């Protein structure tokens, strides 16, 4: 009987492990889903960078069709954590043979021209206008080529201001701000006159949380410091869009729009609509990132299905075994107690003859049955804690789990047997449960024998064998 009692404990432990595997996978899947939704619904819109090509050509430098190159990715946000390695944010302004380029930094857009994106294009959830401006020192270098010399002035970026609208609907529902805050607090909806610095910004300004710093002759208070999640972010500080517009003399202008579609299904449709209404805009969706995430998601889903199959298999086995054990234990207590009552008929008759009530006699035998199963329970728990891993491994189907590699990719290993490793470590809850079950089973099993004892006629005391 002790072993009987120990089996449910082992079974339950195994069951818990399988459930944990499944629920962990579920969590990963829902996290990935959230990432997919955030990424998938994001559409970046900006004017084509206004760089004129430049070239080294004979004759006066002009609008030659020389090699063009692009610096930076404009408003690389890098906030979702899945940013491909972009770098830049740098602004290169150069004068070259009369040719000028303003690579990287998106051209200012009149904010008022694009209000229709939110109001007329269907499928748009919200529009986040962004103003990005980099500040630093101009560094001039001289290049020479074929006897021509040209001075190239390059902006050595010290920090990049990113102005974003701090409205509640955006701040609360969309990933528009960095999340990895290391000191102080993040920007809140409605904040003005405060900035969120990157760790590099903090070093550059020599300022910590609560300090006042001056940016373009305007004083700001440092609300918090964040740790950038990608290299493109290291010099970006965040502030309210209106503050950014004011200090950079760009009131009414922005450098890009981030449009969030209502869901990932309508993204391409929204992107097409924006392109057709505003052909001047460069519209990008994160299809590559999306594909990557979706592949990951489907892997997770397969894993989950495997885990759930194991789980349900384990569960039904566990339930069957527990039912068998419960029934068997009750039956054992029942028969032992029935035998006891039979053996002690005369004693019971005597007790009743000398004045014990039916209730007292019944209580006495119930108590004995419960005591019996409690002792069995204790022995069972001791045996169970030693033997449960082996027992449950023998009794239960193996549970397949995948392990995650360090890179976050899932290595599918559906047949991994985890017996002994994570199976059947008896937790205090399980021990209590087993003990409670023992008491319950004892009660159940001794109910009928105790009733039988109570019904014994006191005249039995007079019978002699």
């Amino acid at each position, binding site marked *: 009987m002790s072993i009987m009692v120990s089996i449910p404990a082992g079974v339950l432990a195994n069951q818990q492990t399988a459930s944990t595997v499944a629920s962990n996978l579920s969590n990963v899947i829902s996290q990935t889903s959230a990432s997919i939704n955030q990424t998938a619904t994001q559409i970046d819109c900006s004017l084509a960078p206004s760089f004129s090509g430049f070239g080294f050509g004979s004759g006066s430098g002009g609008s030659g069709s020389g090699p063009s190159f692009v610096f930076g990715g404009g408003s690389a946000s890098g906030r979702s954590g899945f940013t491909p390695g972009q770098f830049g944010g740098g602004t290169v302004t150069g004068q070259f043979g009369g040719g000028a380029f303003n690579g990287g930094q998106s051209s200012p857009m009149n904010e008022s021209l694009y209000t229709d994106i939110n109001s007329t294009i269907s499928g748009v959830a919200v529009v986040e206008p962004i103003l990005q401006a980099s500040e630093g020192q101009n560094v001039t270098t001289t290049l020479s080529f074929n006897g021509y010399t040209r001075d190239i002035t390059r902006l050595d970026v010290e920090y990049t201001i990113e102005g974003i609208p701090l409205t509640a609907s955006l701040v609360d529902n969309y990933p528009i701000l960095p999340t990895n805050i290391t000191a102080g607090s993040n920007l809140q909806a409605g904040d003005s006159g405060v900035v969120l610095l990157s760790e590099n910004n903090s070093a550059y300004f020599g300022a910590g949380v609560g300090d006042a710093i001056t940016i373009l002759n305007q004083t700001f208070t440092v609300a918090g410091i964040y740790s950038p999640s990608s290299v493109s972010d290291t010099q970006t500080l965040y502030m309210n869009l209106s503050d950014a517009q004011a200090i950079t003399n760009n009131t009414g202008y922005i450098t890009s729009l981030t449009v969030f579609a209502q869901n990932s299904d309508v993204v391409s449709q929204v992107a097409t609509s924006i392109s057709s209404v505003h052909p001047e805009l460069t519209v990008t969706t994160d299809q590559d990132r999306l594909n990557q995430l979706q592949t990951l998601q489907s892997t997770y889903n397969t894993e989950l299905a495997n885990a759930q199959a194991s789980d349900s298999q384990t569960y039904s086995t566990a339930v069957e075994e527990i039912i068998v054990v419960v029934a068997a234990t009750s039956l054992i207590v029942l028969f032992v107690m029935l035998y006891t009552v039979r053996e002690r008929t*005369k*004693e019971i008759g*005597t*007790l*009743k*003859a*000398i*004045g*014990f*009530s*039916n209730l*007292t006699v019944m209580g006495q035998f119930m108590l004995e049955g419960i005591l019996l199963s409690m002792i069995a329970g204790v022995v069972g728990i001791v045996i169970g804690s030693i033997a449960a891993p082996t027992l449950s491994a023998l009794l239960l189907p193996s549970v397949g789990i995948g392990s995650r590699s360090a890179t976050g990719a899932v290595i599918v290993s559906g047949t991994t047997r985890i017996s002994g490793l994570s199976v059947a470590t008896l937790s205090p809850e399980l021990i209590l449960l087993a003990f409670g079950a023992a008491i319950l089973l004892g009660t159940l099993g001794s109910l009928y024998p105790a009733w039988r004892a109570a019904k014994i*006629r*006191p*005249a039995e*005391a*007079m019978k*002699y064998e």
Partner: protein
Amino acid sequence: MSKPVLQIEKLSKSYSLGKRNVPALSNLSLTVNAGEFVAIMGPSGSGKTTLLNVIGCLDKPTSGQVLLDGIDVSKLPENQLYKIRRDKMGFVFQTFNLLPYLNARENVELPMEGRIKSKSERKKRASELLAMVGLSGREGHRPQRLSAGEQQRVAIARALANNPAIVLADEPTGNLDSQNKQEIIKLLANLNITQGTTIIMVTHDGQAAHHTERMLLLKDGKIINEKQGTHLMKKNHTCPHCGSSIQMSDDTCPTCKKPIYSSDEPFSA
């Protein structure tokens, strides 16, 4: 005259054995007064044990009335009867029926458990009772460490625990050797005299029956004969043979030197 403690009126009891109805007692009437020592004798199957069971509220009569201390127990349900057994009855069994896992004192305490809340009070009374039956110092002994005679003494002490109106003894000497037989019957007779305990004893043993004051012969469920026992003479301090004065402790008459108790079968045919 002392008041009746047991009044049986037209008592009948029958068992159904399959289709047959077997009468065990038929139309039996009996009155026992407080302080009496009564022997019920009779051949096997005469209904002795059935009568004892009915008196002891262990069995219900088919018809008739049983008044115990004025209470009609023939009408009481089981959930009342156990209290009657506990408070009004003391049982002495042929096989002693002590609980083997309890020591002498705990066995004597058993009937008091429902009545006396205080454990120390029960303990005290149990020790007193054991002293009364001559077992002081043996309180802690379990039944298996006591002789048969000692076990029956413990059983007698247990029967007296709640100061019962009647002690019912079913063949109390049936499982004892002759010496223990003598001691137990003397103990019962002594308790009857010193404590005034009413005792009804079923016995096959004529010698034991002579120690009582009333001997009843039961046959086919009826009382067919009644004789006076020697015990009554002893109570009156009179020698049954020569009529001279005798003491309680005397086994033989100091005057005529005859044994006071007869060893004849009282109802020999």
